[in-house]
Protein backbone atom coordinates (compact mmCIF):
# COMPACT_ATOMS: atom_id res chain seq x y z
CA UNK A 1 0.00 0.00 0.00
CA UNK A 2 1.32 3.48 -0.80
CA UNK A 3 2.29 5.98 1.87
CA UNK A 4 -0.67 8.18 0.93
CA UNK A 5 -3.14 5.34 1.51
CA UNK A 6 -1.55 4.31 4.80
CA UNK A 7 -1.46 7.93 5.91
CA UNK A 8 -5.16 8.30 5.13
CA UNK A 9 -5.88 5.35 7.41
CA UNK A 10 -3.65 6.82 10.13
CA UNK A 11 -5.50 10.12 9.88
CA UNK A 12 -8.91 8.56 10.46
CA UNK A 13 -8.24 8.80 14.19
CA UNK A 14 -7.92 12.55 14.37
CA UNK A 15 -7.26 12.79 18.12
CA UNK A 16 -4.49 10.24 17.89
CA UNK A 17 -2.95 11.96 14.89
CA UNK A 18 -2.91 15.22 16.86
CA UNK A 19 -1.30 13.43 19.80
CA UNK A 20 1.39 11.88 17.59
CA UNK A 21 2.05 15.23 15.96
CA UNK A 22 2.38 16.99 19.33
CA UNK A 23 4.69 14.30 20.82
CA UNK A 24 7.18 14.70 18.01
CA UNK A 25 6.93 18.46 17.90
CA UNK A 26 7.90 18.49 21.59
CA UNK A 27 11.09 16.59 20.68
CA UNK A 28 11.77 19.07 17.91
CA UNK A 29 11.42 21.96 20.38
CA UNK A 30 13.85 20.29 22.78
CA UNK A 31 16.28 20.02 19.91
CA UNK A 32 15.96 23.72 19.18
CA UNK A 33 16.75 24.61 22.79
CA UNK A 34 19.77 22.28 22.89
CA UNK A 35 21.07 23.70 19.62
CA UNK A 36 20.73 27.27 20.87
CA UNK A 37 23.26 26.50 23.61
CA UNK A 38 26.08 26.01 21.10
CA UNK A 39 27.15 29.22 19.37
CA UNK A 40 29.26 27.35 16.81
CA UNK A 41 26.42 24.98 15.85
CA UNK A 42 26.41 25.91 12.16
CA UNK A 43 30.18 25.48 11.94
CA UNK A 44 29.85 22.05 13.54
CA UNK A 45 27.29 21.01 10.92
CA UNK A 46 29.64 22.17 8.19
CA UNK A 47 32.58 20.31 9.71
CA UNK A 48 30.52 17.16 10.15
CA UNK A 49 29.37 17.31 6.54
CA UNK A 50 32.92 17.87 5.29
CA UNK A 51 34.36 15.08 7.44
CA UNK A 52 31.76 12.72 5.99
CA UNK A 53 32.37 13.95 2.42
CA UNK A 54 36.06 13.34 2.91
CA UNK A 55 35.52 9.89 4.40
CA UNK A 56 33.21 8.85 1.55
CA UNK A 57 35.80 10.04 -0.98
CA UNK A 58 38.37 7.66 0.56
CA UNK A 59 36.03 5.07 2.02
CA UNK A 60 38.01 2.10 0.70
CA UNK A 61 41.23 3.35 2.27
CA UNK A 62 39.57 4.14 5.59
CA UNK A 63 37.87 0.74 5.73
CA UNK A 64 41.20 -0.98 5.23
CA UNK A 65 42.80 1.25 7.90
CA UNK A 66 39.92 0.54 10.28
CA UNK A 67 40.17 -3.19 9.68
CA UNK A 68 43.91 -3.13 10.34
CA UNK A 69 43.55 -1.17 13.59
CA UNK A 70 40.64 -3.32 14.80
CA UNK A 71 42.59 -6.52 14.11
CA UNK A 72 45.56 -5.13 16.01
CA UNK A 73 43.16 -4.55 18.90
CA UNK A 74 42.24 -8.20 18.82
CA UNK A 75 38.83 -7.80 17.19
CA UNK A 76 37.64 -10.15 14.45
CA UNK A 77 36.51 -8.22 11.37
CA UNK A 78 33.95 -9.62 8.92
CA UNK A 79 32.73 -8.19 5.62
CA UNK A 80 29.13 -8.65 4.49
CA UNK A 81 28.10 -7.70 0.95
CA UNK A 82 24.41 -7.92 1.74
CA UNK A 83 21.84 -8.62 4.45
CA UNK A 84 21.96 -12.36 3.89
CA UNK A 85 25.70 -12.53 4.35
CA UNK A 86 25.46 -10.39 7.50
CA UNK A 87 22.85 -12.70 8.99
CA UNK A 88 24.84 -15.79 8.04
CA UNK A 89 27.91 -14.38 9.78
CA UNK A 90 25.94 -13.69 12.97
CA UNK A 91 24.49 -17.19 12.89
CA UNK A 92 27.89 -18.78 12.34
CA UNK A 93 29.30 -16.95 15.37
CA UNK A 94 26.34 -18.11 17.47
CA UNK A 95 26.68 -21.68 16.22
CA UNK A 96 30.39 -21.82 16.85
CA UNK A 97 29.70 -21.08 20.51
CA UNK A 98 26.62 -23.22 20.64
CA UNK A 99 24.69 -20.13 21.71
CA UNK A 100 20.89 -20.13 21.69
CA UNK A 101 20.22 -16.76 23.28
CA UNK A 102 21.34 -13.32 22.15
CA UNK A 103 20.64 -9.88 23.59
CA UNK A 104 20.56 -7.04 21.13
CA UNK A 105 20.63 -3.31 21.62
CA UNK A 106 19.11 -0.93 19.15
CA UNK A 107 20.42 -1.32 15.66
CA UNK A 108 18.62 -0.05 12.58
CA UNK A 109 21.05 -2.09 10.49
CA UNK A 110 19.81 -5.39 11.91
CA UNK A 111 16.24 -4.19 11.24
CA UNK A 112 17.32 -3.53 7.67
CA UNK A 113 18.77 -7.05 7.48
CA UNK A 114 15.70 -8.62 9.14
CA UNK A 115 18.07 -10.39 11.50
CA UNK A 116 15.49 -11.23 14.18
CA UNK A 117 13.25 -13.22 11.84
CA UNK A 118 16.23 -14.99 10.35
CA UNK A 119 17.58 -16.06 13.74
CA UNK A 120 14.14 -17.07 14.99
CA UNK A 121 13.96 -19.45 12.04
CA UNK A 122 17.17 -21.00 13.32
CA UNK A 123 15.82 -21.46 16.85
CA UNK A 124 17.83 -18.60 18.32
CA UNK A 125 16.10 -16.46 20.93
CA UNK A 126 16.79 -12.78 20.29
CA UNK A 127 15.97 -10.29 23.01
CA UNK A 128 15.81 -6.65 22.01
CA UNK A 129 16.96 -4.86 25.14
CA UNK A 130 16.12 -1.23 24.45
CA UNK A 131 12.78 -0.59 26.16
CA UNK A 132 11.03 0.74 23.05
CA UNK A 133 12.47 -2.04 20.91
CA UNK A 134 11.42 -4.67 23.44
CA UNK A 135 7.87 -3.30 23.41
CA UNK A 136 7.53 -3.48 19.65
CA UNK A 137 9.25 -6.86 19.57
CA UNK A 138 6.60 -8.21 21.95
CA UNK A 139 3.95 -6.72 19.66
CA UNK A 140 5.70 -8.13 16.58
CA UNK A 141 5.76 -4.69 14.97
CA UNK A 142 8.60 -2.85 13.25
CA UNK A 143 9.89 0.38 14.85
CA UNK A 144 8.02 3.50 13.74
CA UNK A 145 10.94 5.86 14.41
CA UNK A 146 14.70 5.28 14.38
CA UNK A 147 15.32 6.84 17.81
CA UNK A 148 11.89 6.46 19.43
CA UNK A 149 10.77 3.05 18.17
CA UNK A 150 7.50 2.94 20.13
CA UNK A 151 6.50 6.59 19.73
CA UNK A 152 3.27 5.49 18.02
CA UNK A 153 2.01 3.61 21.09
CA UNK A 154 -0.04 4.90 24.01
CA UNK A 155 0.86 3.99 27.57
CA UNK A 156 -2.47 2.21 27.96
CA UNK A 157 -1.53 -0.12 25.11
CA UNK A 158 1.91 -0.74 26.62
CA UNK A 159 0.30 -1.34 30.04
CA UNK A 160 -2.01 -3.92 28.49
CA UNK A 161 0.91 -5.59 26.70
CA UNK A 162 3.04 -5.73 29.87
CA UNK A 163 0.12 -7.13 31.83
CA UNK A 164 -0.02 -9.98 29.35
CA UNK A 165 3.73 -10.49 28.88
CA UNK A 166 5.29 -9.40 32.17
CA UNK A 167 2.32 -9.83 34.54
CA UNK A 168 2.14 -6.22 35.61
CA UNK A 169 -1.08 -5.13 37.30
CA UNK A 170 -4.07 -4.91 35.02
CA UNK A 171 -4.83 -1.33 34.00
CA UNK A 172 -1.45 -0.02 35.19
CA UNK A 173 -0.17 2.70 32.86
CA UNK A 174 2.40 4.61 34.91
CA UNK A 175 5.58 4.79 32.76
CA UNK A 176 7.78 4.57 35.87
CA UNK A 177 6.07 1.37 37.00
CA UNK A 178 6.11 -0.16 33.52
CA UNK A 179 9.79 0.70 33.00
CA UNK A 180 10.64 -0.89 36.35
CA UNK A 181 8.91 -4.10 35.27
CA UNK A 182 10.89 -4.11 32.02
CA UNK A 183 14.10 -3.48 33.99
CA UNK A 184 13.64 -6.65 36.04
CA UNK A 185 12.63 -8.65 32.99
CA UNK A 186 15.62 -7.49 30.95
CA UNK A 187 18.21 -7.75 33.73
CA UNK A 188 17.46 -11.43 33.96
CA UNK A 189 18.02 -11.76 30.21
CA UNK A 190 21.40 -10.01 30.33
CA UNK A 191 22.67 -12.61 32.78
CA UNK A 192 21.53 -15.61 30.79
CA UNK A 193 22.39 -14.62 27.19
CA UNK A 194 25.61 -15.91 25.64
CA UNK A 195 26.07 -13.32 22.93
CA UNK A 196 25.38 -9.57 22.71
CA UNK A 197 24.95 -7.63 19.49
CA UNK A 198 24.94 -3.84 19.12
CA UNK A 199 24.71 -1.37 16.30
CA UNK A 200 27.47 1.17 15.84
CA UNK A 201 27.18 4.94 15.83
CA UNK A 202 30.76 5.64 14.81
CA UNK A 203 33.74 3.54 13.78
CA UNK A 204 37.08 5.31 14.18
CA UNK A 205 39.50 4.43 11.39
CA UNK A 206 42.68 5.48 13.20
CA UNK A 207 42.00 3.48 16.36
CA UNK A 208 39.71 0.63 15.27
CA UNK A 209 37.25 1.61 18.02
CA UNK A 210 33.50 1.31 17.69
CA UNK A 211 31.44 3.90 19.54
CA UNK A 212 27.91 3.17 20.71
CA UNK A 213 25.64 5.92 22.07
CA UNK A 214 22.71 4.97 24.32
CA UNK A 215 20.64 6.27 27.22
CA UNK A 216 19.29 3.18 28.91
CA UNK A 217 22.56 1.35 29.53
CA UNK A 218 21.19 -1.75 27.83
CA UNK A 219 23.90 -2.01 25.19
CA UNK A 220 26.64 -2.03 27.84
CA UNK A 221 24.80 -4.42 30.13
CA UNK A 222 24.61 -6.87 27.26
CA UNK A 223 28.11 -6.42 25.88
CA UNK A 224 29.89 -6.61 29.24
CA UNK A 225 27.91 -9.51 30.71
CA UNK A 226 28.23 -11.86 27.75
CA UNK A 227 31.53 -13.36 26.59
CA UNK A 228 30.91 -12.72 22.88
CA UNK A 229 30.20 -9.23 21.57
CA UNK A 230 29.18 -8.48 17.99
CA UNK A 231 29.03 -4.98 16.52
CA UNK A 232 27.13 -4.67 13.22
CA UNK A 233 28.23 -1.60 11.35
CA UNK A 234 27.21 -0.04 8.05
CA UNK A 235 30.35 0.89 6.13
CA UNK A 236 29.28 4.55 6.08
CA UNK A 237 29.62 4.85 9.86
CA UNK A 238 33.36 5.43 9.61
CA UNK A 239 35.08 8.62 10.68
CA UNK A 240 38.81 9.17 10.22
CA UNK A 241 40.05 10.47 13.58
CA UNK A 242 39.20 10.00 17.22
CA UNK A 243 38.98 13.78 17.64
CA UNK A 244 36.17 13.80 15.04
CA UNK A 245 34.03 12.17 17.71
CA UNK A 246 33.91 15.57 19.41
CA UNK A 247 32.04 17.02 16.43
CA UNK A 248 29.63 14.13 16.11
CA UNK A 249 28.87 13.53 19.80
CA UNK A 250 28.05 17.23 20.11
CA UNK A 251 25.66 17.04 17.18
CA UNK A 252 24.02 13.65 17.65
CA UNK A 253 22.08 13.79 20.92
CA UNK A 254 21.21 17.47 20.63
CA UNK A 255 19.66 16.76 17.24
CA UNK A 256 18.00 13.53 18.31
CA UNK A 257 16.36 14.23 21.68
CA UNK A 258 17.68 17.62 22.78
CA UNK A 259 20.08 16.11 25.32
CA UNK A 260 23.58 17.64 25.47
CA UNK A 261 25.00 14.11 25.00
CA UNK A 262 23.64 10.58 25.34
CA UNK A 263 23.97 9.18 28.86
CA UNK A 264 26.47 6.57 27.70
CA UNK A 265 29.02 7.03 24.91
CA UNK A 266 30.91 3.74 24.96
CA UNK A 267 34.21 3.25 23.16
CA UNK A 268 34.79 -0.46 22.54
CA UNK A 269 38.35 -1.18 21.47
CA UNK A 270 39.43 -4.61 22.62
CA UNK A 271 37.63 -7.81 23.55
CA UNK A 272 37.25 -8.56 27.23
CA UNK A 273 39.54 -11.14 28.80
CA UNK A 274 38.67 -14.58 27.43
CA UNK A 275 36.00 -12.94 25.28
CA UNK A 276 35.57 -12.26 21.58
CA UNK A 277 34.84 -9.03 19.79
CA UNK A 278 33.40 -9.24 16.29
CA UNK A 279 32.84 -6.32 13.95
CA UNK A 280 30.72 -6.93 10.86
CA UNK A 281 31.15 -4.34 8.10
CA UNK A 282 27.99 -4.28 6.01
CA UNK A 283 27.48 -2.94 2.49
CA UNK A 284 23.91 -3.98 1.57
CA UNK A 285 23.46 -1.39 -1.17
CA UNK A 286 25.63 1.36 0.28
CA UNK A 287 28.35 1.14 -2.38
CA UNK A 288 25.64 1.42 -5.05
CA UNK A 289 24.27 4.57 -3.40
CA UNK A 290 27.85 5.87 -3.28
CA UNK A 291 27.92 5.70 -7.08
CA UNK A 292 24.94 8.06 -7.46
CA UNK A 293 26.25 11.65 -7.36
CA UNK A 294 22.80 13.12 -6.64
CA UNK A 295 22.11 10.78 -3.75
CA UNK A 296 25.43 9.78 -2.19
CA UNK A 297 25.12 12.50 0.44
CA UNK A 298 22.40 10.44 2.09
CA UNK A 299 25.22 8.16 3.28
CA UNK A 300 26.32 10.91 5.67
CA UNK A 301 23.28 10.23 7.87
CA UNK A 302 24.08 9.66 11.56
CA UNK A 303 20.55 8.39 12.35
CA UNK A 304 19.49 11.15 14.76
CA UNK A 305 15.88 11.26 13.58
CA UNK A 306 15.67 15.08 13.60
CA UNK A 307 14.25 15.11 10.07
CA UNK A 308 11.37 12.89 11.24
CA UNK A 309 10.56 15.00 14.27
CA UNK A 310 10.33 18.14 12.18
CA UNK A 311 8.55 16.71 9.13
CA UNK A 312 4.87 17.74 8.93
CA UNK A 313 4.11 14.64 6.87
CA UNK A 314 5.90 12.21 9.18
CA UNK A 315 4.33 13.73 12.27
CA UNK A 316 0.87 13.40 10.83
CA UNK A 317 1.21 10.03 9.14
CA UNK A 318 3.32 7.96 11.54
CA UNK A 319 6.41 5.91 10.80
CA UNK A 320 4.58 2.74 9.78
CA UNK A 321 2.96 4.51 6.81
CA UNK A 322 6.33 4.48 5.08
CA UNK A 323 6.64 0.67 5.20
CA UNK A 324 10.43 1.01 5.10
CA UNK A 325 12.96 0.25 7.83
CA UNK A 326 13.94 3.89 7.98
CA UNK A 327 10.86 6.10 7.70
CA UNK A 328 10.52 9.85 7.33
CA UNK A 329 12.42 12.17 5.00
CA UNK A 330 15.77 10.36 5.26
CA UNK A 331 14.08 7.00 4.68
CA UNK A 332 12.36 8.45 1.63
CA UNK A 333 15.71 9.24 -0.01
CA UNK A 334 17.53 6.08 1.14
CA UNK A 335 14.98 3.47 0.12
CA UNK A 336 14.07 4.30 -3.52
CA UNK A 337 17.66 3.38 -4.40
CA UNK A 338 17.08 -0.08 -2.95
CA UNK A 339 13.74 -0.79 -4.65
CA UNK A 340 12.31 1.96 -6.82
CA UNK A 341 9.05 0.18 -7.53
CA UNK A 342 8.29 -0.52 -3.89
CA UNK A 343 9.51 2.76 -2.40
CA UNK A 344 9.02 5.09 -5.37
CA UNK A 345 5.96 6.58 -3.66
CA UNK A 346 7.99 7.80 -0.65
CA UNK A 347 9.64 10.86 -2.23
CA UNK A 348 6.09 12.13 -2.69
CA UNK A 349 5.40 11.91 1.06
CA UNK A 350 6.74 15.41 1.50
CA UNK A 351 5.71 19.03 1.12
CA UNK A 352 9.27 19.88 0.07
CA UNK A 353 9.21 22.54 2.78
CA UNK A 354 12.89 21.92 3.47
CA UNK A 355 12.64 21.72 7.26
CA UNK A 356 14.42 18.33 7.20
CA UNK A 357 17.39 19.89 5.44
CA UNK A 358 17.45 22.76 7.94
CA UNK A 359 17.72 20.50 10.98
CA UNK A 360 20.00 17.82 9.52
CA UNK A 361 23.21 17.85 11.61
CA UNK A 362 25.33 16.66 8.68
CA UNK A 363 23.71 18.97 6.12
CA UNK A 364 22.19 16.35 3.84
CA UNK A 365 20.21 18.13 1.10
CA UNK A 366 17.20 15.96 1.92
CA UNK A 367 14.45 17.95 0.21
CA UNK A 368 16.52 18.44 -2.93
CA UNK A 369 17.07 14.71 -3.09
CA UNK A 370 13.34 14.09 -2.58
CA UNK A 371 12.70 16.34 -5.58
CA UNK A 372 15.33 14.53 -7.65
CA UNK A 373 13.87 11.12 -6.78
CA UNK A 374 10.50 12.39 -8.00
CA UNK A 375 12.03 13.07 -11.41
CA UNK A 376 13.40 9.53 -11.54
CA UNK A 377 10.09 8.02 -10.44
CA UNK A 378 8.22 10.02 -13.11
CA UNK A 379 10.67 9.04 -15.82
CA UNK A 380 10.33 5.40 -14.82
CA UNK A 381 6.62 5.78 -15.52
CA UNK A 382 5.52 4.70 -12.06
CA UNK A 383 1.97 5.72 -11.10
CA UNK A 384 3.25 7.94 -8.28
CA UNK A 385 4.96 10.09 -10.90
CA UNK A 386 1.59 11.62 -11.76
CA UNK A 387 -0.70 11.31 -14.75
CA UNK A 388 1.46 12.05 -17.75
CA UNK A 389 -1.42 12.46 -20.23
CA UNK A 390 -3.19 14.96 -18.01
CA UNK A 391 0.04 16.83 -17.32
CA UNK A 392 0.79 16.89 -21.06
CA UNK A 393 -2.66 18.32 -21.81
CA UNK A 394 -2.22 20.93 -19.10
CA UNK A 395 1.19 21.79 -20.52
CA UNK A 396 -0.08 22.41 -24.04
CA UNK A 397 -3.10 24.29 -22.65
CA UNK A 398 -0.92 26.66 -20.70
CA UNK A 399 1.31 27.17 -23.72
CA UNK A 400 -1.61 28.34 -25.96
CA UNK A 401 -2.96 31.69 -24.68
CA UNK A 402 -6.15 31.70 -26.73
CA UNK A 403 -7.10 28.17 -25.75
CA UNK A 404 -6.26 28.95 -22.12
CA UNK A 405 -8.53 32.00 -22.25
CA UNK A 406 -11.42 29.95 -23.57
CA UNK A 407 -10.81 27.23 -21.01
CA UNK A 408 -10.89 29.86 -18.24
CA UNK A 409 -14.21 31.18 -19.47
CA UNK A 410 -15.63 27.69 -19.52
CA UNK A 411 -14.30 26.95 -16.05
CA UNK A 412 -15.86 30.08 -14.53
CA UNK A 413 -19.15 29.29 -16.23
CA UNK A 414 -19.10 25.76 -14.81
CA UNK A 415 -18.37 27.08 -11.33
CA UNK A 416 -21.32 29.45 -11.56
CA UNK A 417 -23.63 26.70 -12.85
CA UNK A 418 -22.61 24.13 -10.23
CA UNK A 419 -21.55 26.19 -7.23
CA UNK A 420 -20.10 24.18 -4.39
CA UNK A 421 -20.44 21.01 -6.39
CA UNK A 422 -16.82 20.14 -5.79
CA UNK A 423 -17.63 16.42 -5.73
CA UNK A 424 -17.68 16.74 -9.52
CA UNK A 425 -13.95 17.11 -9.30
CA UNK A 426 -13.30 14.50 -6.65
CA UNK A 427 -11.29 12.44 -9.08
CA UNK A 428 -8.28 14.56 -8.20
CA UNK A 429 -6.78 14.25 -4.72
CA UNK A 430 -6.36 18.00 -4.54
CA UNK A 431 -10.11 18.70 -4.39
CA UNK A 432 -10.97 15.85 -2.07
CA UNK A 433 -10.51 18.01 1.00
CA UNK A 434 -10.61 21.47 -0.54
CA UNK A 435 -13.53 23.58 -1.72
CA UNK A 436 -13.39 25.25 -5.07
CA UNK A 437 -13.36 29.04 -4.93
CA UNK A 438 -16.26 31.25 -5.92
CA UNK A 439 -16.06 32.05 -9.60
CA UNK A 440 -14.86 35.63 -10.17
CA UNK A 441 -17.05 37.87 -12.33
CA UNK A 442 -14.28 38.37 -14.82
CA UNK A 443 -10.78 37.16 -15.47
CA UNK A 444 -7.72 39.32 -14.96
CA UNK A 445 -7.32 39.49 -18.71
CA UNK A 446 -10.86 40.85 -19.15
CA UNK A 447 -10.36 43.32 -16.32
CA UNK A 448 -7.04 44.48 -17.76
CA UNK A 449 -8.58 45.06 -21.18
CA UNK A 450 -11.26 47.26 -19.60
CA UNK A 451 -8.66 49.27 -17.68
CA UNK A 452 -6.74 49.85 -20.86
CA UNK A 453 -9.90 51.19 -22.53
CA UNK A 454 -10.77 53.46 -19.59
CA UNK A 455 -7.36 55.05 -19.68
CA UNK A 456 -7.63 56.01 -23.32
Amino acid sequence: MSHAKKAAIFNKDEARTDWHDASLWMVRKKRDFAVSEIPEWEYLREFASDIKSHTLSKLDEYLVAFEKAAKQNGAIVHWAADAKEHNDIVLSILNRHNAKKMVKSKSMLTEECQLNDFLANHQIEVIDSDLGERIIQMLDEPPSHIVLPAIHLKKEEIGELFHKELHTEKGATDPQYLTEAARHHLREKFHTAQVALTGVNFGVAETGEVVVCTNEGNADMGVHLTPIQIHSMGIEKLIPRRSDLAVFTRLLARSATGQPITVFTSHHRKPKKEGEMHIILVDNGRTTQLGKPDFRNSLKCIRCGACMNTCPIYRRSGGHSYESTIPGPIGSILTPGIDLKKYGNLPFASTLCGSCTDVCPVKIDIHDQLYKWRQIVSEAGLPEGGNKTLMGMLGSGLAAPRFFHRLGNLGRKMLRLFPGNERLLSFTIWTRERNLPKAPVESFREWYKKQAKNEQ
Partner: protein
Amino acid sequence: MSSRDRILSHIKANKPNPWPLPDVPVFESSSPDKKKLFIQILERGGSKVGCVDEINQIGRVVSSIFPERKRTLSTLGNVENTENITSLDPEFYEGTDITIVEGVLGVAENGAIWITEKELEGIRVLPFITQHLVMVVSEKSLVGTMHEAYKVLGRPDSEFGVFIAGPSKTADIEQSLVIGAQGARSLLVILTP
Protein backbone atom coordinates in the same frame (compact mmCIF):
# COMPACT_ATOMS: atom_id res chain seq x y z
CA MET B 1 36.23 -12.76 -5.10
CA SER B 2 35.66 -12.31 -1.38
CA SER B 3 33.02 -9.91 -0.13
CA ARG B 4 35.80 -7.76 1.24
CA ASP B 5 37.40 -7.37 -2.18
CA ARG B 6 34.04 -6.89 -3.86
CA ILE B 7 33.01 -4.13 -1.46
CA LEU B 8 36.38 -2.40 -1.78
CA SER B 9 36.35 -2.57 -5.57
CA HIS B 10 32.77 -1.23 -5.70
CA ILE B 11 33.88 1.70 -3.57
CA LYS B 12 36.90 2.36 -5.79
CA ALA B 13 34.64 2.43 -8.83
CA ASN B 14 31.92 4.54 -7.23
CA LYS B 15 33.58 6.94 -4.82
CA PRO B 16 33.41 10.68 -5.40
CA ASN B 17 36.37 12.94 -6.18
CA PRO B 18 38.75 13.70 -3.32
CA TRP B 19 37.40 16.06 -0.69
CA PRO B 20 39.75 17.65 1.87
CA LEU B 21 39.59 16.59 5.51
CA PRO B 22 38.85 19.75 7.51
CA ASP B 23 40.97 20.83 10.44
CA VAL B 24 38.46 21.16 13.24
CA PRO B 25 39.43 23.82 15.78
CA VAL B 26 39.31 22.96 19.48
CA PHE B 27 36.17 24.94 20.28
CA GLU B 28 36.19 26.05 23.90
CA SER B 29 33.24 26.63 26.17
CA SER B 30 31.77 30.12 26.10
CA SER B 31 30.97 29.80 29.80
CA PRO B 32 33.47 31.50 32.12
CA ASP B 33 32.75 29.12 35.01
CA LYS B 34 33.29 25.49 33.99
CA LYS B 35 32.49 24.10 37.43
CA LYS B 36 29.19 25.94 37.65
CA LEU B 37 28.15 24.83 34.17
CA PHE B 38 29.20 21.22 34.83
CA ILE B 39 27.04 21.07 37.98
CA GLN B 40 24.11 22.81 36.33
CA ILE B 41 24.07 20.47 33.31
CA LEU B 42 24.43 17.36 35.49
CA GLU B 43 21.53 18.41 37.71
CA ARG B 44 19.40 19.22 34.67
CA GLY B 45 20.00 15.66 33.46
CA GLY B 46 18.79 14.15 36.74
CA SER B 47 22.14 13.67 38.55
CA LYS B 48 23.03 14.82 42.05
CA VAL B 49 26.26 16.71 42.69
CA GLY B 50 28.22 17.06 45.92
CA CYS B 51 31.48 18.87 46.59
CA VAL B 52 34.14 17.89 49.14
CA ASP B 53 37.39 19.51 50.24
CA GLU B 54 39.13 16.25 50.99
CA ILE B 55 38.88 12.68 49.74
CA ASN B 56 38.11 11.35 53.21
CA GLN B 57 34.78 13.23 53.20
CA ILE B 58 33.40 11.14 50.34
CA GLY B 59 32.00 8.44 52.61
CA ARG B 60 30.06 11.03 54.59
CA VAL B 61 28.53 12.63 51.48
CA VAL B 62 27.49 9.24 50.13
CA SER B 63 25.95 8.29 53.48
CA SER B 64 24.04 11.56 53.68
CA ILE B 65 22.46 10.96 50.28
CA PHE B 66 21.92 7.23 50.85
CA PRO B 67 21.28 7.08 54.62
CA GLU B 68 20.25 3.45 54.49
CA ARG B 69 22.93 2.31 52.11
CA LYS B 70 23.71 -1.37 52.19
CA ARG B 71 26.43 -2.93 50.13
CA THR B 72 28.80 -0.28 48.77
CA LEU B 73 31.73 -1.11 46.52
CA SER B 74 34.54 1.31 45.94
CA THR B 75 37.58 1.44 43.71
CA LEU B 76 38.92 4.25 45.91
CA GLY B 77 40.70 2.53 48.76
CA ASN B 78 40.07 5.08 51.47
CA VAL B 79 36.27 5.43 51.69
CA GLU B 80 34.66 4.34 54.96
CA ASN B 81 32.12 1.49 55.03
CA THR B 82 32.89 0.24 51.54
CA GLU B 83 34.12 -3.03 50.08
CA ASN B 84 36.89 -3.41 47.55
CA ILE B 85 36.46 -5.28 44.28
CA THR B 86 37.28 -8.90 45.04
CA SER B 87 35.38 -11.03 42.55
CA LEU B 88 34.80 -11.11 38.84
CA ASP B 89 31.48 -12.95 39.12
CA PRO B 90 28.61 -10.82 37.75
CA GLU B 91 26.32 -12.00 40.53
CA PHE B 92 28.73 -10.32 42.94
CA TYR B 93 28.01 -6.95 41.34
CA GLU B 94 24.29 -7.40 40.65
CA GLY B 95 23.69 -7.41 44.39
CA THR B 96 25.53 -4.13 44.75
CA ASP B 97 23.66 -1.16 46.08
CA ILE B 98 26.18 1.57 45.44
CA THR B 99 29.46 1.66 43.52
CA ILE B 100 31.99 4.45 43.92
CA VAL B 101 34.43 4.95 41.06
CA GLU B 102 36.87 7.65 40.06
CA GLY B 103 36.40 9.42 36.72
CA VAL B 104 39.29 10.63 34.58
CA LEU B 105 37.85 13.92 33.40
CA GLY B 106 34.58 15.84 33.31
CA VAL B 107 33.12 17.84 30.42
CA ALA B 108 31.30 21.01 31.46
CA GLU B 109 29.11 21.47 28.38
CA ASN B 110 27.31 18.14 28.79
CA GLY B 111 28.18 16.77 32.23
CA ALA B 112 29.89 13.73 30.73
CA ILE B 113 32.58 11.97 32.77
CA TRP B 114 35.21 9.78 31.11
CA ILE B 115 36.15 6.53 32.77
CA THR B 116 38.04 3.52 31.45
CA GLU B 117 38.60 -0.13 32.17
CA LYS B 118 41.64 0.84 34.25
CA GLU B 119 39.65 2.86 36.80
CA LEU B 120 37.01 0.12 36.80
CA GLU B 121 39.65 -2.42 37.82
CA GLY B 122 38.88 -4.48 34.76
CA ILE B 123 35.16 -4.77 35.48
CA ARG B 124 33.58 -3.04 32.49
CA VAL B 125 30.03 -3.73 33.60
CA LEU B 126 30.52 -2.10 36.99
CA PRO B 127 29.05 1.38 36.37
CA PHE B 128 26.05 -0.14 34.56
CA ILE B 129 25.10 -3.05 36.77
CA THR B 130 25.23 -1.25 40.12
CA GLN B 131 21.89 0.04 41.43
CA HIS B 132 23.37 3.47 42.16
CA LEU B 133 26.57 4.99 40.82
CA VAL B 134 28.87 7.50 42.48
CA MET B 135 31.56 9.11 40.33
CA VAL B 136 34.34 11.09 41.94
CA VAL B 137 35.92 13.73 39.72
CA SER B 138 38.60 16.29 40.39
CA GLU B 139 37.73 19.90 39.62
CA LYS B 140 41.15 20.19 38.04
CA SER B 141 40.14 17.63 35.43
CA LEU B 142 37.20 19.65 34.11
CA VAL B 143 37.29 20.77 30.48
CA GLY B 144 34.77 22.92 28.63
CA THR B 145 33.83 20.94 25.53
CA MET B 146 34.13 17.53 23.88
CA HIS B 147 36.87 18.93 21.63
CA GLU B 148 38.99 19.72 24.68
CA ALA B 149 38.14 16.33 26.18
CA TYR B 150 39.38 14.34 23.19
CA LYS B 151 42.46 16.57 22.99
CA VAL B 152 43.32 15.68 26.59
CA LEU B 153 42.51 11.99 26.08
CA GLY B 154 44.55 11.71 22.89
CA ARG B 155 44.94 8.22 21.56
CA PRO B 156 43.16 5.50 23.50
CA ASP B 157 45.16 3.90 26.29
CA SER B 158 42.50 1.47 27.47
CA GLU B 159 40.56 -1.51 26.17
CA PHE B 160 37.22 0.12 26.95
CA GLY B 161 36.25 3.66 27.84
CA VAL B 162 32.94 5.42 28.29
CA PHE B 163 31.54 8.90 28.83
CA ILE B 164 28.79 8.73 31.45
CA ALA B 165 26.54 11.79 31.67
CA GLY B 166 23.82 10.79 34.12
CA PRO B 167 21.69 7.97 35.46
CA SER B 168 20.35 5.51 32.92
CA LYS B 169 17.06 6.76 31.55
CA THR B 170 14.38 6.27 28.95
CA ALA B 171 11.45 8.11 27.45
CA ASP B 172 10.23 5.22 25.36
CA ILE B 173 6.75 5.20 26.91
CA GLU B 174 4.88 8.23 25.62
CA GLN B 175 7.96 10.43 25.88
CA SER B 176 7.66 10.42 29.69
CA LEU B 177 11.11 10.66 31.22
CA VAL B 178 11.86 7.73 33.54
CA ILE B 179 15.16 7.75 35.45
CA GLY B 180 16.56 4.27 36.02
CA ALA B 181 16.12 2.14 32.92
CA GLN B 182 18.48 -0.84 32.48
CA GLY B 183 21.59 0.74 34.03
CA ALA B 184 22.18 2.60 37.31
CA ARG B 185 19.12 4.20 38.90
CA SER B 186 20.95 7.32 39.99
CA LEU B 187 24.22 9.13 39.52
CA LEU B 188 25.89 11.10 42.29
CA VAL B 189 28.90 13.11 41.18
CA ILE B 190 31.35 14.17 43.88
CA LEU B 191 33.73 16.96 42.96
CA THR B 192 37.08 16.97 44.71
CA PRO B 193 39.51 19.90 44.54
